[in-house]
């Protein structure tokens, strides 16, 4: 049978990564994804069934994989070669139409007794995803044993199959898996008071937005979207404010009335839902999340910085990773400072103080250090309150220079103190 097979070919993966960076999507042509004739996967054990896909979705994680952008963090939990495709609606041998729940948990792997998570019904948090009688694989579509939806046939454990109602079209059914992911995320986000930020208006971002609104979440939602259609859909689905990614920090600052230091907010949104999972989106998320807030990474990260993923608490194959911002934000801040993209981002509003002007005395207010100072006293006869003509102002100029130096050193001390206090606060 025909299948789109993804093989472990390092050179081709590198070629895909390069091509994918030149033109998005070009990696598929040069990478290790090939259309091949393969044997249909055999049924691993009792309780497994053959599923012949009608439609299979193309997930963002699939695109990242074939375009060489996927994180190597996932290598230990996939098995090569694998057939992509985990958003699937298909027919079983008995003609039943079913959708796939792709997570390969203990029951599918023949592991008994199951892990603690599976025992508690939290199969999305299964601790045995690389063990049992199946090859390693986070989920169908990344596991050699099961095959995937981008083929004419795959296998699925009966616990992975949900019967599709007759009144649901294939097009609707194939969206069940990403929608379930979004609903899971919507039910996971903390119910705090502040505005909520969704980074990314791809399918998952839009579905998460829809799920949040369907769950009755009435918070102000700020969403980033790159393309006009995405902006329109986001508005239609209930986003209060849709901005381009480079405008996110400005929008969150405005929504939260936060102050700004450097390129960073003193406050931010209590919850940020990152539906992109790239290095840039994570940096953006951490830039706008409030101290002590939560960044929820929905879906599977593409080329996310490994340390961020590694320290996150994982919420299973449904793809919810939770990052707690308190400590990570500082790390992201220093990373953002080095990243060329950060430098290209539109700057936040003006720096608070222009030392040069302040130091020259023009800003100084009578109650800010100069109270009681009077102009030089003049004689009663022919006196003037104004400075002499230009040629005579050498002493004045010297005074101003000294003032300037004093002011500058004071400003430095003040800034340092403020920074230290802020760090301590964190």
């Amino acid at each position, binding site marked *: 049978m025909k299948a789109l097979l993804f093989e472990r070919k390092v050179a081709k993966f590198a070629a895909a990564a390069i091509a994918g960076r030149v033109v998005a999507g070009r990696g598929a042509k040069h990478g290790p994804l090939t259309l091949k004739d393969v044997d249909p996967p055999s049924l691993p054990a009792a309780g497994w069934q053959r599923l012949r896909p009608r439609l299979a979705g193309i997930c963002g994680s699939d695109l990242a994989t074939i375009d060489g952008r996927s994180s190597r963090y996932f290598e230990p939990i996939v098995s090569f070669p694998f057939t992509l495709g985990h958003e699937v609606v298909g027919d079983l041998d008995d003609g039943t139409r079913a959708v796939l729940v792709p997570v390969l948990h203990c029951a599918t792997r023949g592991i008994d007794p199951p892990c603690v998570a599976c025992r508690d019904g939290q199969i999305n948090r299964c601790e045995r995803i690389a063990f049992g009688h199946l090859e390693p694989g986070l989920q169908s579509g990344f596991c050699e044993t099961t095959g995937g939806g981008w083929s004419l046939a795959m296998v699925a454990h009966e616990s992975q199959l949900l019967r599709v109602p007759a009144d649901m079209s294939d097009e609707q059914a194939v969206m069940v898996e990403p929608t379930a992911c979004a609903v899971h995320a919507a039910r996971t986000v903390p119910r705090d008071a502040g505005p909520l930020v969704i980074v990314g208006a791809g399918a998952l971002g839009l579905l998460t937005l829809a799920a949040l609104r369907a769950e009755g979440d009435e918070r102000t939602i700020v969403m980033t979207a790159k393309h006009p259609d995405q902006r329109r859909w986001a508005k239609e689905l209930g986003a209060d404010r849709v901005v381009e990614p480079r405008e996110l920090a400005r929008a969150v600052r405005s929504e939260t009335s936060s102050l700004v230091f450097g390129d960073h907010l003193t406050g931010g949104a209590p919850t940020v839902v990152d539906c992109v999972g790239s290095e840039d989106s994570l940096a953006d998320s951490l830039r706008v999340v409030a101290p002590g807030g939560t960044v929820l990474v929905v879906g599977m990260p593409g080329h996310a910085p490994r340390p961020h993923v590694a320290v996150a608490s994982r919420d299973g194959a449904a793809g919810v990773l939770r990052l707690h911002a308190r400590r990570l934000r500082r790390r992201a801040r220093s990373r953002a400072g080095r990243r060329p993209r950060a430098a290209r981002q539109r700057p936040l509003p003006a720096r608070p103080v222009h030392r040069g002007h302040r130091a020259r005395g023009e800003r100084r207010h*009578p109650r800010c250090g100069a109270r009681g100072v*009077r102009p030089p006293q003049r004689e009663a006869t022919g006196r003037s309150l104004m*400075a002499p003509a230009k040629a005579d102002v050498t002493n004045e100029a010297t005074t101003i220079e000294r003032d300037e130096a004093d002011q500058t050193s004071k400003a430095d001390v003040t800034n340092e103190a403020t920074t230290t206090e802020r760090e301590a606060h964190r």
Partner: protein
Amino acid sequence: MTRSRAPRPGFVLDVDRNTPPILFHHGEGFRFERLPAGRTRVVYPADPLPGLADPAGAIRHALVNPLDCEPLPALLRPGMKLTIAFDDISLPLPPMRRPDVRQRIIEAVLDLAAEAGVDDVHIIAALALHRRMTEAELRHAVGDRVYDAFAPHGLLYNHDAEDPDGMVLLGTTRHGEEVQMNRRAAESDLLVYVNINLVAMDGGHKSTATGLSGYTALRHHHNVKTMQESRSFMDQHRSELHASNWRQGKVIRDAGIKIFQIETTLNNNTFGLDGPMAMLQKREWDWTPRDRAAFLAMQGGLKVMSSGARRRIFEQWKAPYELTSVQAGEVEAVHAVTTENVYRQQLVPVQGQTDILTMGLPYICPYNVNSIMNPILVACLGLGYFFNLYRGKPLVREGGVVIMTHPTPWEFHPVHHPSYIDFFEQVLADTTDPAEIEQRYEKRFAEDEWYRHLYRTSYAYHGVHPFYMWYWCAHALQHVGQVIVVGGDTRAVRRLGFRPASTMADALEMASDVVGRQPTITHLHNPPLLMADVS
């Protein structure tokens, strides 16, 4: 200045087939447009009135011979607190050549104060919620001698409307309007206010009730209702903006604050009678071959420059304005004379309204001196200022069309206009209805700590300022049926709620959907400044 003839009054030209193309200002550039013959008229400003031959003498005379008030020397005594407040960077436009009239007056007042033995003097830039003036701008306004004597000692500074210790609440009007004022000014024995009355909106009680005030008081007249009930805010007798300021002025007076108001008027010599921009001061048929050559050279040069370079060149221009009158004394008595002097220069009689009003918007408005004219300011200049430059009735009939020319770039000065960016990208993206904007968004922007911080310590306009710019358009938006911008950035123009057009011909075609196929057209040939007296 030499003149070959007496200044001509402003007049209305009926366009015929022999009329040359009409000059339209277009930001940091210009357009020539041929307007339809037989149904178009062009309102030209008067020639500049002659300046006072002895400005220093006239100022001295005004100070010692005030209106309805004791002479200034009699009000000064040793040991008193004297505060001099002056109009900020938003006046005049463009900034005038040195010496600025404020410098002349402040120096004269300080001379009298010194003679009287007054030592406790503060000088305050009365900027309300405008951005702070930089050192260079302050030096330009008050002169180096005044700056060097006062600024280093903290005695010359910008008004800070968000300083909790620096503002004082004086009371409320009978309409419930709070009156707030700079504490130093309020607690002084004498407040001398130095005004430049560039247009009829300026001056009077507005100088102190607005210039030295803050958001708490300004919100009572800087709002949609006030603007929509002013016909227009350039005509103080039919302006709710002024009525409110006058009520607040009375509270200030009743609080015992002694104000010595000094008001000045300038002629409209914006571009000079000679020099590189002199042709802009003339009517098109008066252009000499030399003017044409100079204009073509300028236009050619501007075309190859970046927008930033063009902006920097225009920012260098200082207008050779001349003082046409100075009067001092009691606020209302002074302002009555001042207003007459403004009208003497700017008022042009116009018979009847028009279907389409066209206007060429220049590179500068009160809020982008040394800055960028962002789309909100473009709207404010056209629909706020130029539209309201009328007495009697608006130049354009109700339901008519306004056509403006300006590049309207989607560009903002990040230091001066931070809240404008959010206003444009968030508020106007949501709605352009001034009343809805006021109700839903104003408070949040006005009380935003970050905007307050930038206003107080950087050079940013207050967070609420873009709202006021939009409210300034409220009367026009209510009155006209359509607004078209020729040559503007399409996205920015649409964000403003206006219609973009590539050419004037396209704009007139688009306007015909609203006003029919043979509409009457009136072009406001402004600047130099004029005010239409529509009967």
